[in-house]
């Protein structure tokens, strides 16, 4: 069997697995977020929080809950790292410096998991499991809560009520993420991922002597890192490390975990707005982009353009033997089209066009299928833009799911899509004129006069502002400039969009529904899915083309 055919078969198997999980998981999540009953453990948790989970919140109250919880999360994680040196089970690691601790705290709370530290060299058991892994759960649950609030905005009428943030947060964690994570972690251990608390210990070597190696709660963190589209690896090598991702099956399983909730949430959306076909149209849009990007990535990686890869004979630099080119290509697209940022192969060493596909995937706003929750709300904002454009073409007031898309809604949607480009292009441009920032680039000796070095910086801010977390790892990002600016990009890129999404949800929920007429744009039809794909590609293209031309395109064509 040729590697290309094996790659295609893996993609088919993955698609089939996702299709099997789509309905049960999507329906289950719809039931979780609309059930009036609380589990016993949830009641205990609500009592600890001191919140009444049955109170309905209007959008400002919902937003205050999100922000309060996240501010506390950043401060707690910051302090935990700052006092690491004095904590038990810290494996002798010192406290983290202020700028790096800020960067890491912002990164994990914002569901980004950009890592300017090296896991096995910096973080002990307590910070990894009680700090970083906890944010992997709750930042994902926060994203899902905000997405559900927006869906309720469409589903409800003549009310400002969007649900209860604490209930949504706790239910997403306890009923969705934790159960899947427990099963997934045990599957990973059964395949060879480690799960122990043995700390740093010696292991005998074949030629004699021994080497120090890290033990840790790896499998339990690995599974939620993928499932919650977080991406922060226990080890520096992330999912390329054999202890995180031991074989070709776990590799596919981890890709499945990355994609399963974001895709299934379109079913949840369809259920909650009372028309599953609306969910299918969103699913189709996401699926077309995902499959298209994966096909392009496989094509460019198997063609292995670029002098170094041509000399080697295949694009194997930065890739593991057990995964090969095909499986690594599938992983890298899944991780950059969601907000995951975990890697099983190193993006900086992909072909120039491959790197461009990864960048473009993030620049789309990570909506195909996107991060858990953030993918769905990002895509729904794009759908609003698409119905607006369609409305302009035929001269009708745009509407979506029975709600009028008026001036206020369009203003909020426009603000949403302007945030990340502003952060990405602004900070990248600033870095290009700062000598210290330029000194962090690794690949300046590339052909094409440093375009790969430019891509490293562009990639860093694209990854940060879009809450991805993967990197062109050559960039030395552990400097005060990058730690601070990427930290800001991650926080602003996560929470400003949430402000606009919740405001939008509030404004939609207050409207009264407009009856469907013969002139209503049928948003559950293939035509609309096509229009949505076009809208996404055109908006992203117009925004980022000049930057892409200076980076990966210049490198690939040189």
């Amino acid at each position: 069997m040729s590697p290309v055919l094996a790659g295609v078969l893996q993609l088919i198997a993955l698609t089939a697995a996702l299709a099997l999980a789509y309905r049960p998981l999507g329906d289950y999540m719809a039931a979780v977020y609309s059930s009036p009953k609380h589990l016993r453990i949830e009641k205990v948790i609500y009592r600890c929080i001191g919140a009444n989970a049955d109170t309905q919140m209007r959008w400002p109250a919902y937003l205050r809950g999100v922000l309060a919880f996240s501010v506390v999360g950043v401060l707690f994680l910051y302090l935990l790292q700052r006092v690491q040196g004095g904590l038990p089970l810290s494996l002798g690691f010192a406290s983290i410096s202020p700028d790096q601790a800020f960067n890491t705290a912002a990164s994990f709370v914002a569901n980004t998991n950009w890592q300017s530290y090296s896991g096995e060299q910096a973080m002990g058991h307590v910070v990894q499991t009680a700090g970083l892994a906890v944010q992997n759960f709750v930042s994902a649950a926060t994203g899902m809560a905000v997405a559900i609030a927006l869906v309720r905005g469409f589903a409800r009428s003549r009310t400002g009520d969007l649900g209860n943030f604490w209930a949504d947060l706790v239910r997403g964690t306890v009923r969705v993420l934790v159960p899947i994570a427990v099963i997934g972690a045990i599957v990973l251990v059964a395949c060879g991922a480690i799960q122990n608390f043995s700390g740093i210990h010696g292991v005998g070597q074949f030629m004699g002597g021994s080497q120090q190696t890290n033990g840790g709660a790896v499998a339990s963190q690995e599974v939620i890192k993928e499932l919650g589209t977080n991406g922060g690896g226990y080890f520096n090598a992330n999912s390329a490390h054999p202890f995180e991702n031991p074989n070709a099956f776990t590799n596919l399983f981890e890709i499945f975990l990355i994609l399963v909730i974001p895709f299934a949430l379109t079913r949840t959306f369809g259920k909650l707005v009372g028309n599953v076909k609306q969910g299918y149209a969103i699913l189709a849009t996401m699926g077309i982009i995902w499959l298209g990007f994966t096909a392009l990535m496989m094509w460019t990686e198997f063609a292995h353009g670029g002098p170094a890869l041509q000399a080697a004979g295949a694009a194997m630099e930065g890739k593991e033997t057990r995964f090969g080119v095909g499986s690594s290509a599938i992983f890298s697209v899944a991780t950059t089209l969601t907000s995951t940022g975990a890697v099983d192969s190193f993006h900086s060493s992909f072909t120039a066009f491959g790197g461009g596909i990864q960048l473009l995937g993030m620049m789309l706003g990570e909506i195909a299928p996107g991060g858990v929750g953030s993918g769905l709300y990002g895509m729904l904002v794009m759908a609003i833009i698409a119905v607006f454009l369609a409305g302009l073409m035929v001269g009708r007031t745009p509407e979506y799911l029975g709600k009028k898309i008026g001036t206020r809604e369009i203003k909020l949607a426009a603000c949403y899509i302007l945030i990340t480009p502003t952060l990405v292009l602004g900070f990248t441009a600033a870095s290009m004129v700062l000598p210290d920032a330029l000194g962090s680039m690794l690949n300046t000796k590339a052909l094409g006069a440093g375009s790969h070095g430019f891509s490293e910086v562009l990639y860093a801010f694209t990854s940060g502002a879009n809450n991805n977390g993967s990197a062109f790892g050559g960039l030395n990002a552990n400097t005060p400039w990058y730690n601070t600016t990427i930290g800001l990009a991650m926080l602003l890129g996560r929470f400003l969009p949430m402000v606009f999404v919740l405001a939008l949800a509030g404004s939609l929920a207050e409207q009264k529904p407009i009856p469907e007429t013969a002139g209503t744009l049928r948003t559950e039809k293939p035509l609309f899915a096509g229009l949505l794909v076009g809208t996404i590609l055109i908006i992203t293209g117009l925004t980022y083309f000049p930057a892409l031309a200076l980076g990966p395109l210049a490198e690939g064509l040189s």
Partner: protein
Amino acid sequence: MNNSVRNTARLIAAGLRALLVLTVVCGVVYPLVVTGVAQAAFPGKANGSEVSSHGKVVGSSLLGQRYDKGKDKHGNPIPDLKFFQPRPSAGLGSNKTNGVNTQYDLQVSGASNLGATNTDLVKAVQERKKWVSETYDVPESKVPADAVTSSGSGLDPDISPEYAQLQTGRVAKENHLPANTVEKLVKDHTDGRLLGFMGEPRVNVLELNVALKDLVQSGGRG
């Protein structure tokens, strides 16, 4: 004003309590339960898949290592050609200065991060190709890609079957074994794709070298 400060304080306190209780659930109970199940059901795997030879731990089957006989005067390791050699490892762990080869250092996982157009990488690939071609006496066109590129983790435990087969002649000669015995050994240690289509065929270098050592000690009768 006083009211809004008090409301904010109350909200922050609720957020803190929520974080603490969820930390207990996701950061204490969850990892301990998973560890308990893992240690009870799969102790060998949960503790790093260690491989033993003659009662001594010789490494983890999941982590690559080097097979050297000392270092030259520049401090570069000299490969021991009696044993099968792993992929080049040029991972640049971010806590070491760029350019330091981690040489399968277990605590500095990571990749070179060099781009496809990087002239340093082009040079490194060409040098490695020349080395493999001269050491194992094969034309450069026969050298597979994994033999001249470094992996993502820098700890790749595997090499391709092509790279393993290409080393058999020299390994057999160094160990005074018949070439076809060593070729057969490699074949026996070649794993195909999982279920026929997942990943790529590979040879685990540590397990192969353990078997090779046993073969040599038994005088080639395997």
